[in-house]
């Protein structure tokens, strides 16, 4: 906390940061001594400070992904002390602040690890596999200009609210990083669940459920074995019940398809 005098409290930390030159490099942890870190800085601002120092020493800064720094774009990642997005509940790495740590702490910082998320450099990983899942059916096919008047189809508030709960997913990939099997089931279930629960989404429900799950398998994500580590890691608190719903839709869709 900022002390009343307005002077930030400073931490002296030891960082163990994963450095990896490129996708083919083996990678290793590097120890960085990090004195003078203000508790009011965000975790990524702490890395900015470290990078500024590394640049000053003529060294290569640590590469990591980020953009909005408001917890909404899903671009930041990082496994912090073994936990995707770090220790605070429902908080992305960019919204995590250094006051969550103590003076003298050692902090392990690693990339999100999964076969489907190859490391680009250091802490930055390639999550384009998520786009391929959406391309598998995470949409409603409505041509621009062909939409009916919006209020022609009233949607009960509880249905709309539930769809929103699923739609809150920011596509960061923490669910994958947290899962032993590196499954993307929570991500798939959230997007499919949003569209499958709305009247507009019914026409493509079957194709969507099948298509997205198949795209997930194809992209190299693992199987879901109902451990629900994903739910615990999700910064937007997407509920595990969406997975149950997707399983139901998928089974029904699969059965329907084999009848055809």
């Amino acid at each position: 906390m900022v002390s009343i005098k307005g002077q930030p409290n400073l931490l002296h930390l030891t960082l163990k940061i994963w450095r990896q030159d490129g996708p083919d490099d083996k990678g290793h942890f590097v120890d960085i001594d990090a004195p003078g870190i203000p508790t009011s800085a965000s975790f990524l601002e702490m890395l900015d400070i470290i990078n500024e120092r590394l640049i000053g020493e003529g060294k290569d800064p640590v590469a990591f992904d980020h953009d909005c720094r408001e917890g909404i774009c899903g671009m930041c990642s990082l496994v912090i002390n073994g936990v995707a997005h770090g220790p605070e509940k429902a908080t992305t790495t960019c919204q995590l602040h250094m006051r969550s740590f103590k003076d003298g702490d050692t902090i392990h910082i690693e990339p999100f690890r999964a076969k489907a998320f190859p490391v680009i450099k250091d802490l930055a990983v390639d999550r384009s596999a998520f786009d391929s899942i959406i391309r598998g059916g995470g949409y409603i096919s409505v041509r621009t200009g062909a939409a009916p008047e919006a209020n022609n189809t009233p949607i009960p508030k509880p249905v709309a609210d539930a769809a929103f709960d699923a739609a809150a997913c920011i596509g960061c990939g923490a669910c994958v990083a947290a899962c032993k099997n590196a499954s993307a089931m929570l991500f798939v279930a959230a997007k499919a669940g949003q569209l499958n629960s709305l009247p507009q989404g019914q026409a493509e429900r079957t194709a969507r459920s099948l298509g997205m799950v198949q795209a997930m398998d194809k992209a190299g994500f693992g199987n879901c074995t109902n451990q629900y580590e994903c739910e615990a890691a999700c910064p937007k608190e997407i509920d595990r019940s969406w997975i149950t719903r997707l399983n139901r839709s998928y089974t029904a869709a699969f059965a329907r398809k084999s009848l055809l």
Partner: protein
Amino acid sequence: MATEPDQMAAHSASQEIPMTMNSAIPEGPMAEKWTRHKMASKLINPKNKRKYKVIVVGSGLAGGSAAASLSELGYQVECFCYQDSPRRAHSIAAQGGINAAKNYQNDGDSVHRLFYDTVKGGDFRSREANVHRLAEVSVDIIDQCVAQGVPFAREYGGLLANRSFGGAQVSRTFYARGQTGQQLLLGAYSALCKEIEHGNVTMHPRTEMLDLVVVDGQAKGIICRNLKTGAITRHAADAVCLATGGYGNVFFLSTNAMGCNVMAAFRAHRRGALFSNPCYTQIHPTCIPRSGDYQSKLTLMSESLRNDGRVWVPKNKEDSQKAPGDIPEEDRDYYLERKYPSFGNLAPRDISSRAAKEVCDEGRGVGPEVGGVRQGVYLDFAEAINQFGQATIEERYGNLFEMYQRITGESPYELPMRIYPAVHYTMGGLWVDYNLMSNLPGLHVLGEANFSDHGANRLGASALMQGLADGYFVAPATLPNYLATQKPGSVTTDHAAFEEAEKAVTERLEKLLSIQGDRSVDSFHREVGLLCWDNCGMERTKEGLEDALAKIPKIREEFWSNVRVPKSGVSSFNPELEKAGRVADFIDFAELMCIDALHREESCGGHFRAEHQYTEEDQKDGLGEVGEAKRNDENFAYVAGWEHTGDPSHPRLHKENLEFEEVKLAVRSYK
């Protein structure tokens, strides 16, 4: 002098480009212009459409919706963004909502009223015909988004809900909790994904446009860098659309995402596109203040908080360091209530922003000292909590309080919030005509990147509307007017212009890497940003702007001789190199912005020149309220269009005069 290597080269390419600002507004009554224009627009037969290729740079609301819609029509589209996925564009961060003249509330809204509010809100510095079209298509946007599955807020009867927003007396804002931008963008992104899979879009994520390629005076392609591999690539097309967002990050600190930049627009400007009204920037009064020099960005707190919070600072400088609870009631200055008794804490955005700056500059700001000043004022909920109870306040603002606590570590239930104004949106941008085409034929500009619809000030919930209007409805209808005049595929990437542009890009990158000076890229960004904030921010003066203009060339010179970009190479993932290119352009752009602000001898909307405000006398004469922006319609009712001359310190001014047929020019008053 140390400057950028391709300075002159870029200019020579712009020689044949028309430097005229012909708005191409269609004939006819205001309410019929768009319909008539669509009827008169050229059509391309379906078989031919697929022979045309269009480049769309940007995948935010404007770019994502344009790419998807153009592909649906049958064109080949190549779409680019710098993030790892098109879903992450900065549009995702918009909170409040999107306007549309649906009149679902039966409260008297109409296309005309939305048009009127937007022209007036823009302080009479926008083009009426564009704004009217925006209001017309607003209703189609909502239909489109709902059909895509965007989960807008609904009433118990299942119909869409609305809320009201600043600058309007009707409820016309559609919203999805506090995440409207996210939901709209995910809608556009899903349409884009559908078209990547089944249509004609090729998506290039993590790819940054570094230059525009101009062939015989027309935009025919771009040069990019693959940010993952560092590879430089050429892309040719029959037309180019830029939807690359706003330039708020010229101030270093803003509410924009870290990567938001002016590079694409500025590169186009250097190739001949006119840059309009760069000095029109919007400041939001309620953001979380800086907590230290390491601060990387600022976070918006909804303005709705001012409905229940009371704004104050200590009366005496000496109390600035005290805990708020130790400052007795009689030593507090509720300055908004004191200075503007009729509005109090709800004084308009620009007035409350400037008032906060004033008390902090006097040394009465609160919170941590950053750069020698305490930049923060209290927004106190103690009285509201007493009056309505904590539960009610929690119900109203619970999620905002939580976000505030996450960032500052302080609970607004126990301590007053600290807030300070921050840069939030930029109204200026590349000049476009009614077809959204710049003076550089073939180059179209969409969304926040163009200057078009908001004049000198944007109303809340209107940027999302404009981005989607441009992308879903306007560009797909107007682009064929240009394409029909072109033979498809006539320029290929082996053209000499691509050669020249690629060479310039490569030389610039190599130059950036070769300097190996002492200062980080961020240190330059901070320096130029702070200078702009101090001299071209909330309040501008002739002296301040001249001071900034004297300093910027020195910053540029030092940048090009003393920046240090890690050597990991052009040909690899190198985020510092990305930043360096963006900051180099911000430095040049800062100069253009200050030149524009200096030349505009009036106050209007987001551009407040201290020399031009209403005085006590004026108020007595009924001309305007004390301290309000004083426009000069006689001399400045025009759009400024700046031409790059090769020397960034001496751009050439062109003008598009604005005519007001429907809305009478009047003082923007909200009394």
